[in-house]
Structure formats: structure tokens, C-alpha cells
């Protein structure tokens, strides 16, 4: 039995990316039911050093036999400084995961090394070359400072994510409400990602009892322009989805832009004015389309676009 998975989409909605220990059968068998856009099966930190082999066997059969439906399946592989990552890549590609999260990325070279190993594995296992996507996790000041080159390192790369735990350790800071300790990393990484045209994801929030703190952080993520967030518990998913959902006013405006643009484009007009006097050109359209997509995913869109 093998469940066919559709070809991964490089730029899709990734509001929530939930970590799951690839070694725990009870977790991975149906991790998709909570509605995360992506799940991240973890071969790295969650798996004990002497269970790395066992986790790969579990992962392989899970990828092959569990129907994850529309949920994206990413695998976090072990760092390039470990003996595990090469075999991790082979099993990911052989199993047919949608993407690989590279832990502790510090340079464009790191991404390229993984890219090459993925290409090799795709050839070995008869997978279409280029199918497997990548994302890079920045976990150190070096990684953050190299974000610009990292973000442009591979056509497989759909995004970068910040990993706060290790980063904070390197910076000798602790978690501060309001996130002043992460302000530079977040802001710089966002700029690097946007400059390269890829997505950007914020780090996990680990205090599961602090709902208020979590909401405040998500609010800040939204305001700063993150595409989504890594999560450690399913109960965080709905909160992120709610807070990322556009308002009815935003949806209405986005609808107007998309409709008007389609109309004008068919008449060969590139720039036009909306009824509220706002000048619109093609640059507005991707943003408007993203709002509609978010609204649909949030279950609040009732239009027909």
C-alpha cells in the first residue's frame, strides 16, 4: 500500500507548521486532524541519539502509508554536523515527503550541500528531480547574518524559519515578553526572505500555559509580516489561523482589486482607479489574491473568486 502525494507546491499557505516526533507512532498516525497547514516530522531534537535508525523506519512507512491529505509533510533532518543527515535525506526522498527542513543552517553552502544530496537521492529513487522542497532554519547569529545568501541559495527553497531556542542561547538572552531580544533576527530574516521572494516563519512559543503571551507573539508576527509560525502543540493551531485571518473589510477590498484587475486586464488596461479613489496596478494583485486565499483557508470567505 502506498499513498500517492500530489506534487509539492513551493508557494502555498503555511500559516502553521507543527512539530511531531517521527518516532512516536501515536502522534504521527494522524497528525493532520488538527488542521495545521504543514506538519514537521522531526528526526532531530525529538529523537534520542540511539533511536535515529528506528525513527527513520517509522518515518518511511508513515510517509508511504498514512494519507495526510492536503496537509503538507515536512521532515526536519539532523544537522550537517552530525553523521545522520545523509541517510535522513535518502529516507525523506524515498518516502516522498513534500519538503525538508534543514536544521542549523549557517550559509548558502549548507543549503547547496543538502540540495545536491536531495538531487542525488531523487535520481536514486526515481523521484522527479526538483520535486522535494527545502526550508532553512536559522538557529545562530551566523545563520541570521547570512540570511541574505541563504534565502537565495536554491530554487527548492520555499522559506526560512527562525529557531529561537538555540539563537537565544548564542545571544545570551532569555525569552522576553514583547520579543525585544529577537527583534533584529526577526526583522533581518524577514527582509532577506522578502528580498529573495520566499516565505518566512517565526519560532515556536514553548510556554503552553501562557495563552495570552502566545497571542501577543502571534499578533506581533502578523504585524511584522511573517507567513506563519512553527508550533509545538495542536491547541496553538486555531489561534494562529484566527489571528492571521483577514478582516471582512480587507476581504472586500481584495475582492474588488482582483475583480477590477481581471476586468481591466481583459481590456488591456494595466492601471486603474477603484471607486474609493485608490490607484491600483498589477503590483497589488498578488497581495489581494493572498488575502482571498487566507480568507478561504480560514473558512470565512463566502464569495465566488
Amino acid at each position, binding site marked *: 500500500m502506498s499513498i500517492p502525494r500530489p506534487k509539492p507546491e513551493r508557494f502555498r499557505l503555511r500559516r502553521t507548521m507543527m512539530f511531531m516526533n517521527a518516532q512516536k507512532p501515536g502522534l504521527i498516525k494522524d497528525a493532520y486532524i488538527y488542521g495545521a497547514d504543514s506538519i514537521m516530522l522531526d528526526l532531530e531534537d525529538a529523537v534520542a541519539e540511539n533511536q535515529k*535508525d528506528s525513527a527513520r*523506519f*517509522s518515518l518511511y512507512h508513515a510517509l508511504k502509508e498514512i494519507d495526510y491529505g492536503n496537509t503538507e509533510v515536512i521532515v526536519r533532518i539532523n544537522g550537517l554536523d552530525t553523521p545522520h543527515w545523509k541517510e535522513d535525506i535518502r529516507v525523506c526522498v524515498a518516502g516522498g515527503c513534500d519538503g525538508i527542513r534543514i536544521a542549523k543552517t549557517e550559509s548558502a553552502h549548507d543549503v547547496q550541500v543538502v540540495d545536491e544530496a536531495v538531487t542525488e537521492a531523487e535520481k536514486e529513487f526515481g523521484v522527479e528531480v526538483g520535486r522535494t522542497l527545502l526550508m532553512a532554519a536559522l538557529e545562530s547569529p551566523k545563520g541570521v547574518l547570512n540570511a541574505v545568501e541563504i534565502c537565495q541559495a536554491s530554487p527548492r527553497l520555499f522559506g526560512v524559519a527562525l529557531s529561537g531556542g538555540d539563537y537565544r542561547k548564542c545571544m545570551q538572552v532569555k525569552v522576553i515578553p514583547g520579543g525585544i531580544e529577537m527583534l533584529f533576527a526577526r526583522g533581518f530574516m524577514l527582509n532577506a526572505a522578502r528580498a529573495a521572494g520566499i516565505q518566512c516563519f517565526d519560532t515556536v512559543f514553548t510556554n503552553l500555559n501562557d495563552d495570552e503571551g502566545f497571542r501577543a507573539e502571534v499578533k506581533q508576527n502578523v504585524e511584522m509580516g511573517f507567513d506563519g509560525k512553527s508550533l509545538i502543540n495542536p491547541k496553538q493551531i486555531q489561534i494562529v489561523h484566527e489571528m492571521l485571518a483577514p478582516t471582512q473589510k480587507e476581504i472586500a477590498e481584495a475582492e474588488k482589486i482582483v475583480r477590477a484587475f481581471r476586468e481591466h486586464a481583459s481590456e488591456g488596461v494595466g492601471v486603474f482607479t477603484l471607486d474609493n479613489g485608490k490607484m491600483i496596478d498589477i503590483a497589488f494583485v498578488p497581495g489581494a489574491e493572498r488575502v482571498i486565499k487566507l480568507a478561504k483557508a480560514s473558512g470565512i470567505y463566502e464569495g465566488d473568486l
Partner: protein
Amino acid sequence: MELKAVGTAGTLESSDVMITLEPRDSGGIDLTLESSVLNQYGRQIKAEVLASLERLGVKNAKVIVNDHGALDCTIKARVECAFYRGCGCDMDGRFDWGGVIR
């Protein structure tokens, strides 16, 4: 690849299965099965374990299966892991994904 020593994989947690493979020279497969869902799935668990062992080329072994409601994909994964451990394989070696592991 040959089973040389006792190989064990899995845990006793719910939804998991613990597999122990012990090599022997003859006598075929001697399977002992304990399961929390024995009456309803004993037959299927046994079949899954035996099919995996056959793919892996194990002809003679003592096999102990202690199941707590594992799905087929987990049963296969644990049998394979126990086997390669019993063979003394490098845990980061190149495994036959999609070949005998399937």
C-alpha cells in the same frame, strides 16, 4: 544481510509494538504474540510480521511481538529496525528504502 545477534526495536507505549528477533540455525520462525487487540487483530499482526521477515530474508528466528495496538506501518518499521540492529548494521548506513524495506 544476516541476523547475527538479538535485535530489539519499539516500545511498550500505546500504539507501539516491541519486536525482539533472536537468531537460530534452524527450526523456522517461532513467533510469540502478545497484544492488547489479540482477539480482533492477532491474525493480521502475525501476517504482517511474517511478511516483513520474509522480505528481509529471515528464515530461522525466535520472534517475540509485544503489541499495544500498533498499526501495520509501525509493525513493519519495528520489525525492520530490530532486524538491522540484529545484523549489526551501521545506523547511518545506506538502507534499502523501497527495496526490502517497503
